[in-house]
């Protein structure tokens, strides 16, 4: 057992370090995210806009694009992607090394995570060569931003329950319906969408997957205000939206299979969310006074922090175990399914407890808040989203129970009937 980099890994780490030192700003444990990063990913879904107004949002996006360009030029924007699409052609270990190093810097990445982490890999697996050449390089450089048009009012956890209609008309498809919770749809250039092409087929058989230009006539994205007060996700309406058949990804009726590629990559992409953890509350506990002195000296606080420490480090070491398996050519271990499940609740517990420690001042939530820069107030809201987005806690527990432990699948009534004969609720 050892944690040493191999000579190649050490070389790579050195390259990453010198790139980051030259191009990014270091941050401290208790610092928030870069100002105005209201990016498309869930990782910033609950962060209130530090800079308000449309201009500020545009500035933030421009800054993020500028950073992404630099990162892409250096080859670090998509480490696992092949070189021909602008990736680094690297290994999972190199990806982890980059993430470890970037962790200590202020950088914007939220806007590009969905594209690079989930949608790009889907196109790589299922898309046509000309599409890959046309779209993937610009996804990496951040010139074009992508969103994921999956969830609908009646289909979230149960993604295959979507109703968005896709009707074939000659060489074109006509899309009608509504998507919801689409992060970043209001600034995205393109989106990937799964729609129902055959309502008379079984639920999982009648789906087809496409990409769309968000400027296509008939598409309208309306931001939805979130509990944090900001609006990073949208409802997106499709009204007689015509797209050519060439924008289909995978065969007609194979939409479910293609979606699974996206979802599998989602587990990878959101597997390591940043944010509030043991380190933040440990640092904060040295600044906050409770009844008997500094919080860090209070025995109850220490007992609680120890639990978060073992969860936090337990996940980190689980990742090391998986990396070891990967480097030996074995399939990755269990961390993909446990990471977000543990992290989201930990973050909610940590932030809620930190607010308790702050006592009355924990109530204050505004930009000028001098106390720990709103870190825990923001986390209090954001963590609530994390437990839902990218697979709810309950869905993740089901995945562990069924796929890892091999327990029986939930009984379901939706597998045998054609979609249009299934029971449904008022949505």
């Amino acid at each position, binding site marked *: 057992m050892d944690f040493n980099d191999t000579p190649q890994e050490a070389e790579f780490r050195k390259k990453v370090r010198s790139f980051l030192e030259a191009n990014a700003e270091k941050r401290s444990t208790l610092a928030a995210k870069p100002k105005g990063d209201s990016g498309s990913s869930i990782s910033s879904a609950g962060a209130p806009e530090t800079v308000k107004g449309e201009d500020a949002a545009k500035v933030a996006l421009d800054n993020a694009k500028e950073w992404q360009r630099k990162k892409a030029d250096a080859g670090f924007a998509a480490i696992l992607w092949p070189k021909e699409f602008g990736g680094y052609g690297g290994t999972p270990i190199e990806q982890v090394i980059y993430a470890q190093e970037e962790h200590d810097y202020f950088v914007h990445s939220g806007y590009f995570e969905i594209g690079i982490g989930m949608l790009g890999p889907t196109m790589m697996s299922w898309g046509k060569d000309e599409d890959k050449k046309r779209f993937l390089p610009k996804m990496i450089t951040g010139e074009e931003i992508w969103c994921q048009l999956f969830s609908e009012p009646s289909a979230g956890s149960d993604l295959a329950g979507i109703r968005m209609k896709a009707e074939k008309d000659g060489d074109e498809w006509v899309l009608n319906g509504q998507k919801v919770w689409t992060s970043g749809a209001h600034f995205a250039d393109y989106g990937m969408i799964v729609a129902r092409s055959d309502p008379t087929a079984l639920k999982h058989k009648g789906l087809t997957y496409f990409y769309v230009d968000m400027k296509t006539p008939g598409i309208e994205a309306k931001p939805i205000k979130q509990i944090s007060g900001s609006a990073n996700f949208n409802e997106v309406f499709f009204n007689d939206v015509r797209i050519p058949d060439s924008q289909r990804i995978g065969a007609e009726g194979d939409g479910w299979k293609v979606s699974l590629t996206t979802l599998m990559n989602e587990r990878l992409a959101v597997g390591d969310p940043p944010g509030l953890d043991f380190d933040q509350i440990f640092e904060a506990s040295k600044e906050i006074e409770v009844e008997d002195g500094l919080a860090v000296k209070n025995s109850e606080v220490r007992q609680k922090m120890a639990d978060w420490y073992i969860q936090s480090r337990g*996940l980190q070491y689980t990742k090391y175990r998986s990396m070891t398996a990967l480097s030996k050519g074995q399939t990755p271990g269990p961390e993909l399914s446990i990471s977000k499940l543990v992290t989201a609740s930990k973050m909610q517990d940590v932030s809620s407890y930190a607010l308790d420690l702050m006592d009355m001042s924990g109530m204050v939530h505004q930009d000028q808040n001098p106390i720990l820069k709103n870190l825990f107030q923001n986390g209090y809201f954001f963590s609530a989203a994390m437990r839902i987005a990218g697979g709810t806690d309950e869905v993740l527990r089901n995945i562990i129970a069924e796929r890892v432990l091999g327990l029986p699948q939930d009984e379901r009534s939706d597998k045998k009937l054609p979609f249009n004969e299934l029971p449904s609720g008022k949505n």
Partner: protein
Amino acid sequence: MNFDFSDDQKLLRDQARKFLQDKCDRKSVRTILEDNQKNYDSDLWSQISELGWTGTAIPEEYGGLGLGMLELCVIAEELGRALAPTPFSSSIYIFAEFLKSYGTDEQKKKYLPLIASGKKIGTFALSETNGKPKPNNIKTQHTSGKLNGSKNPVSDGESADYIIVAANSDSNLNYNSLSLFIIDRNDSGVDISNLDTIDPTRPACTVDLKNVTCDRLGDEGSGWEMIDNIFNRAAVLFSFEQVGGAQVSLDEAKKYSLERFAFGKQIGAFQALKHKMADMYVKIELARSNAYYGAWALSTDSNELPIAAAGARVSASEAYNYASQENIQIHGGVGFTWEYDCHLFYRRSKLLSLNIGSIRQWKENLISNLEKRNIV
């Protein structure tokens, strides 16, 4: 990075598992549970000693196999899975580690070969009263080469041939007044009486000392420091034993949930139980990973050991407590019977989580060591 056991170590694990499946089945565990006259499975003990397990991490020059601590971790996990009723932890994780770290060459030559061969058993006597052992409640006295006092509870004391005793050389009790002494349990001043424990397969006793002859181990006055260090080392080994037991608790809960039907289906199909088992799995995986980190720190003599050991200990104690408790729950009424094995794990998990200090204590150790690291 290579955060896994080697192929040789995995081979050792497979062999140990097969061996214990054969020689340490539940029937033999229950024999020790139910027979008041037996403190441990002496047949099993001589067999695992013959295989060299007791000498795994003891240097060859002192009669051991001279393998590393990682190999000992592998064995600890298997002993935990099998619920092995032996004094392995007292004699090997603790007594042998004290000798290896603090014995003079003469002491090592005298004791370690006997411990490595399993011919003799050692243990450690610290606690004297309810609650956490600390300078003001360890009252056993050392005066002119003799020990007087009373220790309680002492794990595996009845089985032990040698006992390391924590005692004060000064009537003014403080952190620097504690030293360690080795005694022979056959000394006429040693009086041992059995105590019932929550897990009778892991016995304990009271040890009364009246003018007992002793041999000092390590520097005078450095008792607490040595105890901290050896408990850190033992904590990693215990954590593997705990992870082993926790995993079997989950496996057996799962197996039962697939066999038992209620309301027309396997109870393992009820989401309430599926989610419970998913939670067991998550806690066990986190514990296993923390234990691996502990193993790394232990095997490399890293100065991270106090943190790594405490993390492993807390994580494994919590995982095993949870898994064994919910294993009973998933079994329903039969889980509360003597006949079903659920209680064997329920007993063992709690006993192991107290053996070298409670979860509470280890959480405190963890945070105070993190504070120290921060200052450095």
